[in-house]
């Protein structure tokens, strides 16, 4: 057995929990959509959407409703089965990754002990990267199966980008894992009781966030989409609900990376200054910290221009990878020396 999963809940709690987590993830995406458009507007001296409903809060509903009622079209050059499958892969992996983000210590609900996370696997970050790697099939197959040159270029870029940045992202987390001495995400949160890892692992944090922008195909690393030159990249030929799936997966990935950064570097549900609120507050603390990271994503998108392809590759291999490696090495030496 490679990974042990600490199941201590009865099966019906497991089922209920997965539904609740999926529902929460589903609710977070429209919120992030709206917040992004509103914030981007403010960053450009304008309001953003404010027509649909009070303060424009119903805008994401209108967007989703529009996308879902559109016709499903498919180019004649596309490979039908894969074309339909690819957005599904994207969305499944995104939701699956969301399952490992811990929202708090196990709580007593209905007289049963319930962990506030989908699963607490003993291989936390590995699970994350495994699904991150599968998520790339969603983009790659989608771009390839479209049978269009722009989609194919976008897919190629996505592949190259994901592969080169996943390495740095993984290495950036190695420092955290070494310091915490565990791969379980709840264990890592508990290990941050004294000090959040953003302080000792600042380099690791910066590398992780930068690679996170590339992993989620967000500006300034959104070469795979590159609306200006590739007309949307891998999702050029998609419309309607399938495009909505890609869109959903992208924003869910942003939320997931925010959640992982919260767990790994910002101490999950822990609060500074010795604050120890009752257990039901924990999920809100995590959500608040995630919101900070999502805002950072949007802030960066409003600020930085898209990198050129060679700049992206040079940055990934010549800057991020050495930095992450040195960070992991130094952390390892320090941990060995102090124990």
């Amino acid at each position, binding site marked *: 057995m490679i990974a042990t999963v600490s199941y201590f809940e009865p099966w019906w709690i497991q089922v209920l929990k997965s539904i609740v987590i999926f529902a929460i993830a589903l609710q977070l995406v429209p919120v992030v959509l709206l917040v992004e458009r509103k914030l981007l507007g403010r*960053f450009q*001296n*304008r309001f953003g959407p404010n027509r649909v409903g009070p303060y424009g809060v119903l805008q994401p509903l209108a967007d989703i409703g529009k996308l879902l009622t559109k016709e499903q079209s498919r180019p004649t050059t596309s490979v039908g089965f894969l074309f339909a499958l690819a957005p599904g892969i994207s969305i499944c992996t995104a939701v699956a990754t969301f399952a490992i983000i811990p929202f708090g210590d196990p709580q007593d609900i209905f007289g049963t002990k319930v962990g506030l996370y989908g699963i607490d696997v003993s291989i936390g970050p590995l699970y994350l990267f495994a699904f991150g790697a599968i998520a790339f099939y969603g983009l790659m197959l989608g771009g390839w199966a479209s049978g269009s040159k722009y989609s194919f270029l976008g897919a190629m870029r996505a592949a190259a980008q994901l592969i080169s940045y996943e390495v740095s992202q993984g290495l950036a987390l190695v420092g955290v894992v070494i310091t915490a001495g565990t791969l379980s995400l709840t264990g890592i949160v508990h290990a941050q009781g004294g000090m959040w890892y953003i302080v000792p692992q600042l380099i690791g944090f910066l590398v992780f966030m930068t690679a996170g922008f590339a992993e989620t195909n967000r500006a300034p690393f959104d070469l795979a989409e590159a609306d200006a030159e590739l007309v949307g990249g891998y999702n050029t030929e998609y419309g309607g609900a399938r495009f909505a799936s890609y869109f959903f997966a992208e924003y869910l990935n942003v939320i997931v990376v925010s959640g992982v950064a919260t767990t790994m570097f910002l101490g999950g549900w822990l609060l500074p200054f010795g604050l120890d609120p009752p257990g039901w507050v924990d999920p809100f603390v995590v959500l608040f910290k995630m919101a900070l990271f999502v805002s950072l994503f949007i802030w960066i998108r*409003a*600020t*930085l221009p898209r990198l050129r392809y060679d700049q992206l590759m040079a940055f990934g291999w*010549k*800057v991020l990878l050495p930095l992450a490696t040195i960070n992991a090495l130094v952390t390892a030496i320090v941990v060995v020396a102090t124990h």
Partner: protein
Amino acid sequence: MPWDPHADVIVVDRPPDRGGAASDLYRAFGETLRGLRTTFGRIIEGTTTLQYPEEKTAVYPRFRGRHKLHRFEDTGLEKCVGCSLCAAACPADCIRVVAAENTPELRVSPGERYAAVYEINMSRCIFCGYCEVACPFDAITMGHDYELSDFARSDLIFTKEMLLAEPLERTPLRAAGE
């Protein structure tokens, strides 16, 4: 320096070397932070947009919007005498004037003739203001109204009655110094 296709050495413009990759990275990081500060400044600054249907752009007094035809205030007669100089001046050829004789029973304008038909096709008008300049009696002037969209092209042909009618003041005028 222009590129010479036969040259052995091609001169490539490169930015000045500022001390290697580490210093480049340091500067890039600093510039990124500076950029973040700049965009955040836009939030502090607040919005500058106008919520259009509720708020409208104020126009200058000499703004050339929809035309108006005028009457004399004391007698109520139309200023237009049907001379068609505006139609002649119009570069877009969008004004149509058909003149008729004033009679003692039906006196519409103070001159010999008056405009029996006066139409401006707003879908053709380029709002150059030449009609206003050409008019010897200041009978036609450019107003301030710029909200002229409609559902059918035929609805954009403004008749004399529409141009004479006191227009709804839909456009705010710019205050002095604004």
